[in-house]
Every structure is written in structure tokens, then in C-alpha cells.
């Protein structure tokens, strides 16, 4: 590592900036959302390579611990291509979360992805899937013993008009 005249290593400042940016990008690409007490949602958008999959898994696990969540909704609707490599990464994420005591439901599975998973030739009997995030959430609620009950007598509130007119 080279040093500037002032004695401060020139490389470390740049290195830090790069690290910081990487962390920010990682957070943006892998938003782990706490949709309910104990339920996390992880919508994946875009392609997933090994580095991203590892990042995603680590972030997810940290959030599972921090929020003490027991259910994760992994939404892959936004992943364009799920080949065997990506499928393997996803299953590793599921396995890792399970080791922490959290159940992962995969939602947004296309039939092509289903075929890819089957082709991997591994035991998929423990994988829970639902067609949409909403359905996954419904299952999560029922697992946690929760129910959404419509309030009697109250009609749905209309959307408030925008008061601010330019």
C-alpha cells in the first residue's frame, strides 16, 4: 500500500468509500421489509449472481435475528431467469434461514422456475410456495394464528383529496 506525504495511506480512503457504496447498493438491492411483527418480506428484483446471493442471505439472516422473525416471504416475481445456479442460491438462502428457526415461503414462482427446481433433483418436499406475496402473507398470518377481520358497520374510507393545488 502506498503512502502519501502526510503519512496517511492514500488507498484506505478510497477503499472505505468503495466499501460504503457497496453497502448502500447492497441495501438498495436487497430490501428486507418487516411487513408484520415476525414476518419479513424480501422481494428480489433483477438477476442473482453468487455475490449478490451471499449478500442477500447474510442481510436476511441478520434481519431475522434483529426482528426475531419466524417467517420470511421470498418474492422472486422480479427475477427474470431462474437457472439451476440461481435456484441453488435461493435454496441455500432457504436452508440458512431455516437453521435460524425461520420458515421461508417462496412466492412468485413461475412454472418454468418450478421445472428448474425439480431438475436440481433435490428434495423439495419441505419447500413452501405460494403464487403471490399476498397469498404468502395470508399463509404467514394463519401460521401465526392471526386473522384479518373486516370491521362491521364501517364502510371503506374514501381516499383523501389532495388539498395542495399548485
Amino acid at each position, binding site marked *: 500500500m502506498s503512502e502519501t506525504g502526510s503519512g496517511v495511506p492514500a488507498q484506505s480512503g478510497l477503499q472505505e468509500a468503495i466499501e460504503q457504496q457497496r453497502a448502500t447498493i447492497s441495501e438498495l438491492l436487497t430490501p428486507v421489509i418487516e411487513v408484520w411483527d415476525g414476518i419479513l418480506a424480501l422481494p428480489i428484483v433483477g438477476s442473482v449472481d453468487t455475490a449478490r446471493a*451471499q449478500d442477500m*442471505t*447474510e442481510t436476511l*439472516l*441478520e434481519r*431475522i*435475528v434483529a426482528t*426475531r422473525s*419466524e417467517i420470511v416471504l421470498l418474492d422472486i416475481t422480479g427475477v427474470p431467469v431462474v437457472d439451476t445456479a440461481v435456484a441453488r442460491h435461493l435454496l*441455500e438462502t432457504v*436452508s*440458512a*434461514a*431455516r*437453521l*435460524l*428457526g*425461520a420458515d421461508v415461503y417462496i412466492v412468485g414462482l413461475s412454472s418454468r422456475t418450478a421445472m428448474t427446481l425439480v431438475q436440481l433433483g433435490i*428434495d423439495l418436499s*419441505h419447500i413452501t410456495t405460494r403464487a403471490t406475496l399476498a397469498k404468502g402473507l395470508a399463509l404467514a398470518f394463519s401460521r401465526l394464528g392471526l386473522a384479518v377481520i373486516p370491521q362491521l358497520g364501517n364502510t371503506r374510507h374514501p381516499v383523501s383529496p389532495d388539498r395542495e393545488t399548485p
Partner: protein
Amino acid sequence: MARVPIIRLGDVLIATVQDELYDHDALQFQEDLGQLLERGVAHGVVLDFSTVATVDSFLARLIGAIAAASQLLRAAMVVVGLQPAVAVTLVELGLTLPGVHTALNAEKGLALLAHLRRDERVG
């Protein structure tokens, strides 16, 4: 290194695994636990790994073996507190501990054991 301490809490045994366990201590624990379960002392076991920084294939396999044996001895076992770094490493080694119940911490582990016990009575 010392033995893995096993505490009894009603119908459940709680064992706190120390970091950097020697092989012979792990095997000794397996035997100690087996003897306790054999006597019908408990129907649930919580294996707490929250202070363990490294779990290699030997320990992972031992966990699997202990879980299977416990089931034969009519006790449910739950592994709690595995650290994220450990979980990632185990999965990369292909050791996903199939058939082993897991929970985030001892509290949730106990809740899971109670749940399993209820299911067992009904089923």
C-alpha cells in the same frame, strides 16, 4: 474444556454448548444426554448454540445423530441460537441439518417444544 452443562427445567433439558468444544467433550455430552433421556427424565431438549462461533462437519453430524437418537428415546430436540455466520457456512458445506428442529432462541425453542408436545398428544 469442561463438559456441556445440562439443566433440567420441568419436562425439558437445556444444554448450553460452549464455543470451541473438544471432540471428546461433545461425545461425552452425547452420552450424558442419552443417559438422561433413557431414564425418561425429560421429553424435550433445547440445544443452545448462541455462543458457538464454529460448527464444523463433525459437530453438525453429531447434532443430527443426537436429534435422531432423542426422537427414538421419545424426546423432541430443538437447536437454538445458531449464528448467521455458522448457518451460512453449514449450508455451504451442504449440511442443512434436515429433520432437526430449530428456533431463534431458547424462549422460542421452549415454545416449539410445547407445541410439538401438544401435537403429539392429539395425533
